[in-house]
């Protein structure tokens, strides 16, 4: 695969917390615009993969690339050295993340949650940032909540604002970590609709961790079954959901359906 055809590349990535080895030489890639879903048992390390990509954790081995740049490392001469903060920030610019618990800033109203980073990080003029914020809020169905405070919104509304906030930074890659698992089913449905819409109408690369299997089937180009620190199955959704090759995948899907 030529380099310009890869948006995310994990190469033998190792991640440990103390003695707990979470990623064991993990390899995987995603192409630009591809929609990839990660599934796997609780505690297997799915969140860790996303946090590594966001630069919230550091790798213990291997490399991560975003586009043609290393995230965890930078080139110095022809050697690779661990990335410093400046390099990390430069690569991070291409990535956005939506958290399970939304993580909206309670000290800013909805509009400022969306415009703060575009203005102070991307240097956009205020009018431009606000116009874009309004478009995005319209897209997630919250145009009327412009001046509301996060505390005044329902969980589902907060999560939709968080999605809009991440998109306002115009990321190439959007990371979604169980974005509906803190929500009641009715509220979750609204959020998933918004995400379906985004998957259909934008060319952002999606890397998504979810337990909502129907949603995963709808939006994914590929589903990765992750367990024991490695990817054990990598296939289109129809294949992985209807005729999984691996016994562990079967067991896992069985247990998800039962609960």
């Amino acid at each position: 695969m030529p380099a310009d055809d890869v948006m995310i590349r994990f190469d033998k990535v190792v991640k440990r917390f103390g003695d707990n080895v979470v990623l064991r030489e993990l390899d995987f890639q995603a192409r630009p615009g591809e929609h990839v879903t990660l599934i796997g048992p609780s505690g297997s390390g799915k969140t860790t993969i996303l946090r590594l990509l966001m630069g919230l954790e550091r790798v213990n081995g291997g490399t991560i690339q975003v586009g043609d740049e290393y995230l965890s490392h930078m080139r110095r001469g022809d050697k690779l050295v661990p990335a410093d903060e400046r390099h990390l920030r430069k690569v991070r610019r291409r990535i956005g993340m939506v958290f399970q618990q939304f993580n909206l800033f309670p000290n800013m109203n909805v509009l400022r949650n969306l415009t703060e980073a575009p203005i102070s990080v991307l240097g956009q003029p205020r009018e431009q940032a606000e116009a874009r914020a309004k478009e995005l809020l319209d897209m997630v169905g919250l145009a009327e909540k412009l001046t509301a405070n996060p505390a005044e919104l329902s969980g589902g509304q907060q999560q939709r604002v968080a999605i809009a906030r991440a998109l306002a930074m115009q990321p190439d890659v959007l990371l979604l970590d169980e974005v509906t698992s803190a929500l009641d089913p009715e509220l979750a449905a609204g959020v998933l609709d918004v995400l379906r819409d985004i998957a259909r109408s934008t060319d952002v690369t999606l890397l998504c961790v979810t337990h909502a299997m129907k949603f995963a089937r709808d939006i994914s180009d590929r589903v990765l079954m992750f367990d024991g620190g490695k990817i054990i199955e990598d296939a289109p959704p129809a294949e992985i959901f209807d005729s999984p090759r691996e016994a562990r995948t079967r067991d896992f899907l069985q247990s998800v359906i039962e609960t």
Partner: protein
Amino acid sequence: MFDNFELFLTTLLRGAPLTVAATGGGIVLTILLSFVAGLAMLSRSRWVRFLARVYVEGWRGTSEVVQLFWIYFAVPLLVGFQLVPLWAGILVLGLNHGAYGAEIVRGAVNAVPRAQHEGAIALNLGPAQRIRKVILPQAFVEMVPPFNNLFIQLLKSSSLLSLITVTEITNQGVQVLVPNYTGQALTIFLIMLVLYLILSLVITVVMRLVERWAARVAGRPATARARVTGELGI
């Protein structure tokens, strides 16, 4: 017993401007030092953290009276010029309480949930922007009640300035009134104590307003607060 009440009151009140000036000046310096040292203790540079620690532990570990006498009596012999008593007093009040305030700032910043830091990182805000735009606005509200206690301690400490000839309230009472009106000490002291009580209440009332403002800044719905001063383990 209340024959000279008015005389006592006016004499003591003549000390009030200096008490207020010392306390106000001390509070301003305290706030400044608290934020500088408190944020320095959270710095990524080991040296900055170390220096802030030395300041905080050094000033908390010694007695305020010693600090005052040291600045007022010893330092002039070392540097060759005498500080005006009021300024020496404000300096010590600020340096001493700033060391305590630094821990308040550090604690409040640490109390902002990790998720908020990470939310800010995910939007690629830089370290200074994260602190200024996301963390501090949420931390203020946590700082207000302990700062209220600290400022009342500072007001109380301002009476030490009577020991270095600042003619604030305590000095007026002990140097001017007590020696000249024997047998009437009770009245003099009751008035004095009530004056301090009133000033404490003023601080508390102002801080309640500040807290309401801080809660709004943090985006929290205002809560009725019944926190008692000086809780366990400060």
